[in-house]
């Protein structure tokens, strides 16, 4: 029995072994990799990805997907910048309005998915392009900068040696984990993801679960966008480009199932770190952006393939 548990443990946390292997490889390939400054850098960059992933995990657990995350990040980036610079709004208020808007976008996605039954892939593909376009219109295609000094604290400040974004990410991860594991509606995400009809008949308000999951996704994407804006100190129309890809890849690597019903924050963290270390390590090793894209695409394909094969094996094993 005990050996079985060890085996299960290894299986569950295998992704952490991959993470370890990656760290070893990059530290051999590049002497800078293990420097404290670089590690702090990696973790700080990971925080944006991590915060957005917390939102996406809800959507993926209910069996959906949100492709609009990247453009929501861009949109929030631009509107918060616009509010502060062009309208002179207080940074805190501007951020809250930005996050409120992103939460509404998420709610809209969830509402359409739940009520009009358009596949989430299509709904969020549409909102993706809508809000990317809108961001361009607002910004006129130009970067927006010149924020109040105080705004930079969020993305660039430190508590001791720990960057504030990292602290924010940890808080978000803990909050996400708490919602998923400790609250009754957290369990509903898993139930809806594994069988929506049975959940509805068991008294789960499936539509509301959709609204909540997508709204949370929008909320965390917005928060991530604000942190990014503060870190880069300028509103960019390309801020969130391809961001949804990194988020989805990180979660799938971390064992969140693309078919819904399964996933945990504790494993997702490994996926988030792997994605960020890949980006960082590639840069240190001087691998071109385009080659990075090729490799990252392959990583996602392998991760999803692994998930599917695992599921297939499980099913045939039980049926026989």
């Amino acid at each position: 029995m005990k050996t079985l548990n060890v085996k299960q443990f290894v299986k569950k946390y295998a992704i952490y072994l991959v993470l370890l292997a990656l760290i070893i490889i990059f530290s051999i390939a590049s002497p800078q990799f293990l420097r404290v400054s670089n590690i702090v850098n990696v973790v700080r960059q990971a925080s944006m990805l991590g915060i957005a992933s917390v939102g996406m995990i809800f959507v993926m657990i209910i069996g959906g997907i949100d492709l609009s995350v990247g453009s929501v990040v861009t949109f929030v980036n631009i509107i918060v910048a616009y509010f502060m610079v062009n309208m002179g709004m207080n940074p805190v208020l501007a951020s809250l309005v930005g996050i409120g808007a992103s939460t509404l976008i998420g709610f809209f996605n969830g509402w359409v998915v739940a009520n009009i039954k358009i596949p989430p892939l299509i709904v969020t593909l549409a909102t993706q392009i809508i809000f990317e376009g809108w961001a361009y219109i607002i910004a006129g295609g130009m970067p927006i900068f010149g924020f109040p000094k105080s705004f930079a604290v969020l993305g660039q400040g430190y508590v001791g040696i720990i960057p504030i974004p990292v602290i924010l990410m940890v808080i978000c991860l803990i909050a996400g984990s708490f919602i998923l594991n400790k609250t009754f509606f957290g369990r509903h995400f898993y139930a809806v993801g594994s069988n929506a009809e049975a959940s509805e008949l068991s008294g789960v308000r499936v539509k509301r679960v959709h609204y909540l999951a997508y709204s949370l996704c929008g909320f965390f994407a917005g928060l991530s966008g604000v942190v990014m804006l503060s870190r880069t100190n300028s509103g960019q129309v390309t801020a969130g480009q391809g961001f949804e890809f990194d988020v989805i890849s990180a979660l799938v690597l971390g064992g969140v199932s693309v078919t819904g019903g399964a996933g945990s924050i504790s494993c997702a963290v490994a996926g988030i770190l792997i994605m960020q270390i890949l980006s960082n390590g590639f840069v240190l090793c001087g691998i071109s952006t385009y080659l990075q894209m090729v490799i990252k695409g392959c990583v996602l394909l392998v991760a999803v393939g692994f998930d599917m094969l695992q599921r297939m094996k499980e099913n045939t094993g039980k049926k026989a």
Partner: protein
Amino acid sequence: MSEVILQLKNITKRFPGVVALNNVSFDVRAGEVHALCGENGAGKSTLIKTCTGAVIPDEGEIVIDGQSFKQMTPQLADKYGIAVIYQELNSVGDLSASENVFLGNEIRRGVLVDKKEMARRSAEVFESLNIKINPYELVKNLTVGYRQMIEIAKAVSHNARVLIMDEPSAPLTNNETENMFALVEQLKKKGVAIVYISHRMPEIFRLSDRITVMRDGQYIQTLHTQETSNEELIKLMVGRELSATFPPRKTMVSEEVLLKAENLAGNGVKNISFELKKGEILGFAGLIGAGRTELAELIFGVKEIESGTLTWKGKEVKFHCPQEAIAAGIVLCPEDRKNQGLCLPMNIRDNISLSSARRLSRFCVLDWKKVDEISNSYKEKLQIKTPGLFQQAKNLSGGNQQKVVLAKGLATSPELVIFDEPTRGIDVGAKYEIYKLLNSLIEEGKTIIMISSEMEELIGMADRIIVLAEGHYGGEIRKEEFSQQLIMEYASKSY
């Protein structure tokens, strides 16, 4: 005696932890219907999969036409004409009947599909089997019964010599079942060997020539149908004597009206009125499509009531979703356990606590200790056989899955439990346990609506039966008048 076409000799198959088949032998002759019986988990499915190549046996041999094989492959099975009609049909709705018959084996002229020739040839097959289907009809417009016939026709067009039918009557209405029986007789005359798997005793006695009983992966006995009886067969399947088919129960019907429907309509049912008394088991009978499940969905808030009123404990109600019905004290154990009842990949504890999670939490935070307590208490009370609460629901047998669905409902302390086909696909032994559970619920003061397609079951369990026909109220039968003839008479009314 005609020739043996397919013979399995001393087949053994082990899966990690279980011996699924232990030294099982079985044979089937040309022009014979050989029934395969056993409770769920007896090893019938594994045995079939051995014949088709989906399962590779560890020991034993498979003999076809005197040739011996260590294992089958799908290609070999096809070559020797072994075909299976599964419970879940594999037809493609957007293709025509003839295209389905030739699916994967299309007749071509050059690179193009020759639809005319396919239609002609399938018309021939249909004709030879006495099936009345237009070859050009799209399969999605056909009923389940016809779809099944198309699959059988497909097997015949492949020159099937052994046809394995896995619970073929399960999805069919009585009429369709009759047609299927006629088709089986036809095939028999043509010299096809038929392996017939079913839980329904009357069918087995009506169709089969021989019966092989399996239990727990063991071969038990092969009997000639004419020389055995219902009782003997059940005894062999269960391995013990069942004292009675239905457990006795005290009548608890009170005068208090718990639920009252007046001219209820919507979701395909029309103008239905009835009263449900507290402590009663009210049976709903009817043919498939009579609107029983649809009525349950109306009561439970799954679908919207279009007109008429529903009165629950003296107050007029309209539930907008199942959650409101559950909050009021009604639960539904749906017909299709796997798709509507359970979250199969989730564990038993999470399934049991799904409906009650909300009330087991404070400020949205679940009290896991209470969840464990409740799950454990229902596991004990309903005797759910599982190594632990953390088993995934999909690993349980049908009877135990049904108990988990029930436990989930009971955990919300309901007053009314609606059972839709509570014993469908459950083996004889487990059925008896479910009946006992229903009785104990009544004795605890709960009320039950029981929808069933098995008339014996309704007659054995219910206090009163309401029959629906084509979405309408067909009639009510009091306990003193219970009879299958009367139910059928009401059920076949047409509107």
